């Protein structure tokens, strides 16, 4: 038994239209699937040209979560404690940083030289953390 890829991951968002504005409109990701399944809107995005790795933008709520639990999730998310975290790579961290800064994205960490590359941190509109890095080849 050998696993060979992380193909889909999930983060919670408070509003899926607003999530599209941010992840597609500002970060430049592509919509992979946007389908109303009746019981939920299945909304996934991927970085351009990489449809094999999808991020599900899921809205917490009933019936999957009871209203009180959904409210707890929303409260934790907005205080940055929900744990949602994405790490994206780029060819040019400083340029990407300038682009996102100009678009008014919330910056949490300026570009920093690290042993593994140059990266910086941003926050999505809901409270999730995103890290964008220009990575050095692994030794």
């Amino acid at each position, binding site marked *: 038994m050998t696993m060979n890829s992380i193909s889909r991951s999930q983060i919670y968002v*408070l509003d899926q239209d607003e999530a599209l504005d941010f992840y597609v409109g500002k970060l430049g990701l592509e919509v992979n699937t946007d389908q109303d399944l009746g019981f939920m809107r299945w909304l996934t995005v991927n970085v351009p040209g990489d449809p094999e790795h999808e991020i599900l933008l899921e809205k917490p709520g009933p019936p999957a979560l009871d209203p009180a639990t959904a*409210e707890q999730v*929303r*409260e934790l*998310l*907005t*205080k*940055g404690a929900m744990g949602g975290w994405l*790490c994206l790579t780029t060819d040019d961290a400083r340029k990407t940083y300038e682009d996102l800064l100009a678009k008014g994205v*919330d*910056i*949490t*960490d*300026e570009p*920093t030289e*690290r*042993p*593994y590359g140059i*990266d910086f*941190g941003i*926050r999505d*509109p*809901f*409270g999730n*953390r995103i*890290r964008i*890095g220009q990575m050095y080849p692994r030794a």
Partner: protein
Amino acid sequence: MSRAVEESNRAMLRARDAMDRSYAEPLDVPALARIAHVSEAHFIRTFRATFGETPHRYLQRRRVERAMYLLVQTDQPVTEVCYAVGFGSLGTFSRTFREIVGESPSDYRKRQAAAAGVPSCFTKAWMRPSSAG
């Protein structure tokens, strides 16, 4: 009700993010309250209710965490580290550092080895000294 809590949480998080990003600048409560779009008194009270500590304490400990990082990761003299993380005087820095960490900046530097290269948002979140444990 719930929307109001979410908006308030997100505004407090925006102010906290500003401290994490701009700790080296002379941040004060009026500036942070403006980022959160609330009055100063409301800001202090709400921040504390949201994150369990006052904004002043959060910022102080962010600065100490960044100092701990620079002490271990760089060869900068203690005085430079003090100003680089936003403290206004060496006296305040040394006293605050010792109060929170339990030893002087130079003793801390001698004792610590550099940690693995993990993203600094994690280092910053997990290495910031907290009274909660």
